[in-house]
C-alpha cells in the first residue's frame, strides 16, 4: 500500500496521537451532549470503515449498509432486553448480520450500478420487515428503553462507559482492518478492484473474495448497529432506510475513498456537521446539501487527500522521491 507519500512512522505517530487525544477528551469536556455526539461519530466511524473496505478496497458499491446496521441494532436491543449481557449481544449482532449477509452473496457478482441497485433493494426489504413485523420489532413504534451501557450508576458514568466502549470498538476495527488490508487477502481485494480479469489470471478466486469481503463488512456494520442501539436507547425503523446507507456512503466519499483513516474522519464530519449546523435551524439541510456539492469538487481522495497534500507541503519531502526503501511497504 503506497497511498500516502510520507513516512510510515510519522503516520503511526499521527494516528496514535489522534486516538490518544480522543481518549483524553472526557477529561476536558464534561458536557454530556458533546460526548454523546462524539460517541455517535465513533459508531458511524465503524460503519464507515465497513463501507470503505467494500468501496475503497474491493470496489463494491453497496447501498445496503443501513440494513446491516439495523439488523445489528435490533439484535442487540432484543437480546439485551431478553437479559443477555451487552458483550454477548454485541458479538451476536455482528455474527447475525454477517450470516444474513450470506443471502446477498450471490449478487456480489453484479457490477457497479447493478450491485448498488440490488443492495438498495435489500435495504428497502429489510426496512419493510422492521416496519411490519410488529411482534418482533415493535413496528413503527420501535423499541424503547434499550439497556444503557453503564458500569456505574450515575448518568455521567453511563455516558463515559458508552464513550469509551465506542472508541475502543472503533480503534479495534481500525487496527484490524489495517492488518487485513495489508495482507494476502487485502492485496487480492485491491487487485480485483483494479482489474478483475488480471486478478483471475493471477489465480485470485474473484467471487469467493468478494463474498468474504461483503460478509466481513456486514459483520463490522452489525457491530456498529449494536453500539447504535445502546447509544440511542430507542430504535425506529426509519433509522434504517436506504437514506442511512447513502449517509454512510457520503461519509466515505467525503473522507476519501481508499483511506481507512479518511473513512473515520468522514464519519466525524457526517455526524458532527449536521449537529453543528443546528444553530441555523431551517437553513441546516440547505447548507449541508450545498457543502456536499461543493466538497465533491475538491478531488478524488476527499479529506484524506487534502490532508496528505497539506502535510506534504508543510514537511519538505521526507520521502518525496519515488521511495525505493523497504520501510514504506508496511505502512
Amino acid at each position: 500500500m503506497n497511498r500516502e507519500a510520507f513516512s510510515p512512522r510519522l503516520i503511526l505517530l499521527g494516528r496514535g496521537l489522534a486516538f490518544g487525544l480522543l481518549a483524553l477528551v472526557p477529561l476536558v469536556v464534561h458536557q454530556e451532549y458533546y460526548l454523546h455526539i462524539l460517541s455517535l461519530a465513533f459508531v458511524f466511524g465503524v460503519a464507515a470503515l465497513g463501507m470503505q473496505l467494500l468501496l475503497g478496497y474491493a470496489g463494491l458499491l453497496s447501498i445496503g449498509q443501513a440494513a446491516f446496521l439495523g439488523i445489528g441494532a435490533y439484535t442487540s436491543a432484543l437480546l439485551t432486553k431478553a437479559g443477555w449481557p451487552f458483550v454477548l449481544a454485541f458479538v451476536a449482532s455482528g455474527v447475525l448480520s454477517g450470516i444474513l449477509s450470506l443471502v446477498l452473496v450471490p449478487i456480489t457478482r453484479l457490477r457497479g450500478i447493478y450491485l448498488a441497485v440490488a443492495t438498495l433493494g435489500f435495504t428497502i426489504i429489510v426496512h419493510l420487515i422492521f416496519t411490519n413485523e410488529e411482534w418482533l420489532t415493535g413496528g413503527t413504534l420501535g423499541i424503547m428503553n434499550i439497556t444503557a451501557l453503564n458500569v456505574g450508576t450515575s448518568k455521567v458514568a453511563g455516558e463515559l462507559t458508552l464513550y469509551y466502549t465506542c472508541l475502543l470498538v472503533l480503534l479495534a476495527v481500525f487496527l484490524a482492518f489495517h492488518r487485513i488490508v495489508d495482507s494476502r487477502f487485502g492485496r487480492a481485494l485491491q487487485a480485483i478492484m483494479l482489474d478483475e480479469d488480471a486478478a483471475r489470471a493471477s489465480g485470485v478466486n474473484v467471487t469467493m473474495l468478494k463474498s468474504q469481503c461483503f460478509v466481513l463488512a456486514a459483520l463490522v456494520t452489525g457491530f456498529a448497529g449494536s453500539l447504535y442501539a445502546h447509544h440511542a436507547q430507542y430504535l425506529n425503523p426509519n433509522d434504517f432506510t436506504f437514506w442511512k446507507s447513502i449517509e454512510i456512503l457520503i461519509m466515505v466519499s467525503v473522507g476519501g475513498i481508499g483511506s481507512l483513516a479518511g473513512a473515520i474522519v468522514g464519519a466525524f464530519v457526517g455526524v458532527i456537521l449536521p449537529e453543528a449546523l443546528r444553530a441555523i435551524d431551517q437553513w441546516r439541510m440547505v447548507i449541508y446539501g450545498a457543502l456536499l456539492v461543493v466538497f465533491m469538487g475538491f478531488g478524488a481522495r476527499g479529506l484524506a487527500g487534502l490532508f496528505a497534500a497539506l502535510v506534504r507541503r508543510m514537511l519538505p519531502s521526507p520521502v518525496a522521491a519515488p521511495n525505493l526503501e523497504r520501510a514504506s511497504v508496511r505502512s
Partner: protein
Amino acid sequence: MGVAQLIELAVGGLAIGCIYSLIALGMTMIIRATGIVHFAQGEVVMLGAVFGIVSLAAAKLPFLVVLLIGMALAGIAAAAIELGVYRTLRMRGAPLANIIIATVGMSILLQNVVQLAWSSEPASYPKLFAAEQYSFGPVRLSPQLLWIIGLGVVVMLGLQAFLRYTRTGIAMQAAAQDPEAAQLMGINLTRSTAYTFGIGGVLAGAAGVLLGSLFFTSFSMGFLPGVKAFVAATLGGLGSIGGAMVGGIVFGLLETFAAVWVSTAYKDAIGMVLLILILLAFPQGLAGLFRRNR
C-alpha cells in the same frame, strides 16, 4: 378476482408505470450521455409539480397548459443545474463517483430550498377531471388514470420523434454513444449534455405534474419515485431508451399487483425481490434478455 377488477388494476399499474417510465427515461439518457446516476432527478419531478401548482394558483389555466409549463420550467431548471453545478465539477476534474454523490447533495439542497421557499405542507391540485368514472360494461375506470396513460404515451412518442428526426436529437444520440467521435464531427458536447439534462428535466416535469395531480404535491414527493424509477431503469438495463420505458411500466404493474395479491405492507419488497432475482438471471437488466436472443 374478476376480469373487470383485473383490468382496473392493470390500468392503475399502467398509469403509475408510465410515470416511472418518464422519470426513468430521463435518468437513462443522462447515464448514457455522462455516466451520472442522477439522484436529484426525483427533485426535478418535484419541481415540475410545484411549478405546475404555482402556475395554477396564479391563473386558472387548462390542465394541458399547466402540464406544458411544468415540463418547460423543470427542463430549464435541470439544464441550469447541469450547466451551473455538474459541469463545474467536471471541469474541476472531479471523478464520476464524486459527481454522483454531488447529485445526492443536489437532491438534499433542492428539497430544502423548496421547503423554505414554497411550503412545507403538501398541497393538492384542484379537481381537474370529471369526478365520475367511465364505465365500459362492468369495468370502471377513472378518467384521470386514462389521461395519465394517454399523456405519458404522447410525451414518450414525442421524445422518440425528437431523438430520431431532429438535428439536436441525433446529435445527442451520437454524443452519448461516442463523445470523442461526436466532437470530431463538430458536435458541441457542453450543449448536447445540457440538452440531455434539459430533455430529461422536461420528462421529469411531465411526470411531476401527472404525479402531483394524482396524489399530492410536496417538497419531498419526488425522492421515492426517483429511486423507484432508477430501479426501473436498471431493470430495463440502463442505457437503453426502450429498456427504460418497458422497465418503468413493468415496475408499475408489478408494484400494483403485488400490493393486491401479496400484501400492501410488502408491496415495495415484492418489487425489490423480483428486481434482485431478475438481476441475478440477467446481470445487465432486461435488455440483456434481448441481447442474448439476438
